[in-house]
């Protein structure tokens, strides 16, 4: 949001000032040269990135505090996160960083059409990212894997029926956006408004990409094995339904094996709960992500009962042997931090998308050149920083104790 204001456009300047220098159309009145204007914007965006880093710093601090305090809870809870979805999203964001950096190059070389294409590609990647995230969130919400105060996850009944359809609620704004853009596009086509068509076509793709992300997330979440998730989108999309069930079967088979592996001599109650959970799962064929859930469940239970804990992980100064390690509140803290970190990150993605749509309009107007590519460069820097944050979030949240 800062980016929109970071550069000044003389056409909006205050009264009492008229700009009669056509050849300086993008140079604000208080700057002497393009280079000065560019340098000012560049320093501005770097300082802004500094504030962003420190802003996320607070979240990383909270993460470090609680992971340091309870490494076992973090390792156990992280099992609920789907590594494949995280990895796919990492790849998607890295690719969007590539297209963004390429877009800066296009702006500098006056490749206007290609610039618009690159921005559209970046936006589409952002939409896919959010689509996958929507699957992750809605899936966890329906299981009650929520922040500490709202944490209702019950290992005996991991998929309670009758909750709201969270996915629908997340998708609704994007669906409305898609309808709106398509409608506008049709009107523009009818009116033969060439410019609007050229802006709205890529935007339609962008909104549609959100649902591609949702679809991709559904497939991967439903436990497709490695060979399915190999990134061959067409193949996966085509066979989505079949694979989902197949995946479930697989999941339960593996989960059963896994159960036998687990050694839980001293906590009958938890073992019973596990079996009850398994039964529920076995009856519920339509459950996506059964395998992941089940594994996570086992792992967390085992950790909670203390049977899986490594000696070096247990706090040495533990004053009593009777200490119970993982309570809902403590597992909830992991999810609190997970939602705070990824949520704030997702808000940044949304903000970045907003600014990029504005850039897309300007790029379609061919406003950028080797003297005036600042806005693209600044938004690019912001976008790379959002990517950077994710590069750290991915191993810290998804890859603990796998």
């Amino acid at each position, binding site marked *: 949001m*800062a980016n929109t*204001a*970071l*550069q*000044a456009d*003389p056409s*909006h*300047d*205050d*009264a*009492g*000032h008229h*700009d*009669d*220098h056509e050849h*300086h159309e993008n*140079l*604000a*009145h*208080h*700057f*002497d*040269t393009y280079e*000065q204007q560019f*340098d*000012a*914007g560049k*320093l*501005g965006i770097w*300082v*802004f990135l*500094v*504030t*962003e880093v*420190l*802003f*996320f*710093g*607070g*979240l990383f*601090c*909270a993460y470090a*505090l*609680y992971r340091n305090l309870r490494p076992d809870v973090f390792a156990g809870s992280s099992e609920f996160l789907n590594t494949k979805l995280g990895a796919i999203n990492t790849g998607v964001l890295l690719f969007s960083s590539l297209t963004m950096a390429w877009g800066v190059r296009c702006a500098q070389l006056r490749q206007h059409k290609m610039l618009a294409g690159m921005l559209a590609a970046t936006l589409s990647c952002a939409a896919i990212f959010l689509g996958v995230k929507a699957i992750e969130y809605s899936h966890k919400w329906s299981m009650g894997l*929520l*922040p*500490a*105060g*709202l944490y209702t996850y019950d290992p005996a009944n991991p998929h309670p029926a009758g909750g709201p359809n969270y996915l629908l609620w997340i998708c609704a704004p994007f669906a409305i956006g898609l309808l709106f853009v398509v409608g506008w596009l049709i009107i523009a086509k009818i009116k033969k408004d060439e410019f609007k068509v050229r802006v709205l076509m890529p935007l339609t793709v962008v909104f549609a990409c959100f649902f591609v992300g949702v679809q991709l997330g559904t497939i991967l979440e439903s436990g497709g094995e490695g060979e399915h998730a190999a990134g061959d989108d067409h193949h996966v999309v085509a066979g989505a339904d079949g694979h989902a069930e197949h995946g479930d079967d697989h999941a339960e088979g593996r989960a059963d094996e896994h159960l036998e592996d687990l050694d839980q001599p001293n906590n009958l109650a938890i073992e019973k709960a596990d079996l009850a959970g398994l039964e529920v799962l076995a009856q519920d064929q339509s459950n996506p992500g059964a395998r992941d859930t089940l594994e996570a469940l086992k792992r967390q239970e085992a950790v909670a009962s203390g049977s899986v804990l490594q000696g070096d992980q247990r706090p040495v100064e533990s004053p009593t042997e009777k200490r119970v390690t993982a*309570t809902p*509140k*403590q597992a*909830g*803290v992991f999810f*609190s*931090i997970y*939602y*705070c970190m990824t949520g*704030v990150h997702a808000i940044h993605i949304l903000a970045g998308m907003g600014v990029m749509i504005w850039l897309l309009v300007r790029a379609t107007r061919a406003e950028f050149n080797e003297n005036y590519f600042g806005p693209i460069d600044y938004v690019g820097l912001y976008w790379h920083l959002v990517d950077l944050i994710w590069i750290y979030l991915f191993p810290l949240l998804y890859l603990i104790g796998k």
Partner: protein
Amino acid sequence: MTTGAATAPGGVRDAGFVSDNENYLKNSSGVLSWMFTLDHKRIGIMYLVGILTSFLGGGLLAMVIRYHLMAPGGATTISNDAYNQLFTLHGAIMVFLFIIPSIPAALGNFLVPVMLGAKDVAFPRLNLSSFYLWVGGAIFFVGALLMNGLDTGWTFYTPYSTSTDTSVVMATFGAFILGFSSIFTGLNFIVTINTMRPPGMTWFRMPLFLWATYATSIIQVLATPVLGITLLLLIAENVMHIGIFDPEFNGDPVTYQHFFWFYSHPAVYIMILPAFGIISELISVHSHKGIFGYRFIAYSSIALALLSFLVWGHHMFTSGMSSVTVVIFSALTFTVSVPSAIKVFNWVATMYKGAISLTTPMCYALAFLFLFTIGGLTGLFLGTISTDLHLHDTYFVVAHFHYVMMGGTVVSFVGGLFHWWPKMTGKMFNEAGGRISALIVFVGFNLTFLPQFLLGNQGMPRRYATYDPEFQWLHQLSSIGAFTLGIGLLVAGLVLLHSLYAGRQAPANPWGGATLEWHCTSPPPFYNFKHAPVVGDPYEFANVHYDEATDNYVFTELPRTLVPEEPVKTPTPAGGQS
């Protein structure tokens, strides 16, 4: 109209305007021309109006509080709960809405580009949006006040802030927005000072106010985001119980204090550093003598900005922090006194053998020196662990930070307002009235807060609505002082308001300053400088002479006429009558 520039003997200056239409106050009119202005001077004026309104509100709350404390059981019918809300609102409004934006956002916005010789700040639209963010944050604060009130104290400590029924979420969201306003102001100044200095304005020719503003901006940019995330987490804690700060969900309240003070201690320097900048200007100009130890003052501002990030733990000595950390933070705290003392010594040395004119701004500057020194020295008691354990959360702390914040920042802010008032409005105020206000403020201030040191030392805890009868006489003394202080500030306000319609036209340089803002007319034209001015030493007073005919100081030689020889590669300055 005539300007100092036109009458300068033998002087030709390119700054200054030719017609009244170019005066920034008059170059366009109507409410919309103010609301959507991108002119840093108008934005500064809007900020000034906003923060003075907040100051009035916070000040009235303080008067109510002091009146309530006239009697041990409470002199009014205000309930104890309502009292908690009163002091919380007083603190929150004064800190977030008034002191933090006071000097940087109001005076700074007006002065930074003019002193620098630039046409505007680097990002004028960001500047305007940061003003509206301030307005938005203020609305949330007032909204919280109207809904359920707020009784957590301005620090929002958990666990109380996660269990009280008052509108914590709304108020913290307001503070969150205000934080962004502050960040954007700081970002703008950093970029402006870095990239928009005209030829000749090297780092060490910058007026010290700019150094102070720069140091402040560094803190704003580095510390405020941490406040942002802290408040966001606190909101999440209230809404979703994320269990990071709330012990009920295995959170840790001390962590909240770490997060909070990592911002809020540097924020103390956001409040006081610009005040140092103002005092450096005031003392030098009104002593008509170059500043003593320019580089030391400049560097000490930066040093304070950096040191301020090392000492946040001294707010938490009794919070349950580990004893090792307590010792480290205590030791680091004492380092802060070095750059602060450097400044005070340099100001005193500047006055030595200067031609001091006891104008209103100078009276406030002298009051500042006295009050800030007391505030700073009592800080040493609080930084020492053993005495802090006794004095923590007593009136001693209240007195200490009021001496620094009110006696330091507010007094210098009022002094700076008097100093630059002729420049901002083009009107001279009544000098006698101004001096009387300074005297009343000085007496009233000491009467209010000196007794509080005694109260605190005797064990009177802060934030209590009632007290033992043995404290009554000191409390009454303090209350009487507070009313005196209020009257003093009221007089100051009336003097300034009176000048608006009855003051005589201000000359370009009424005090004899040498920095660039005194080279423009009063009030400055819309674009400040037609061409980038060429800059000399900001504290070289040899060329500045009093001209009795116009009651103005003029530049007898031509220190600034050296128009750059090579053609400037700029477009003809926009806004100019080219």
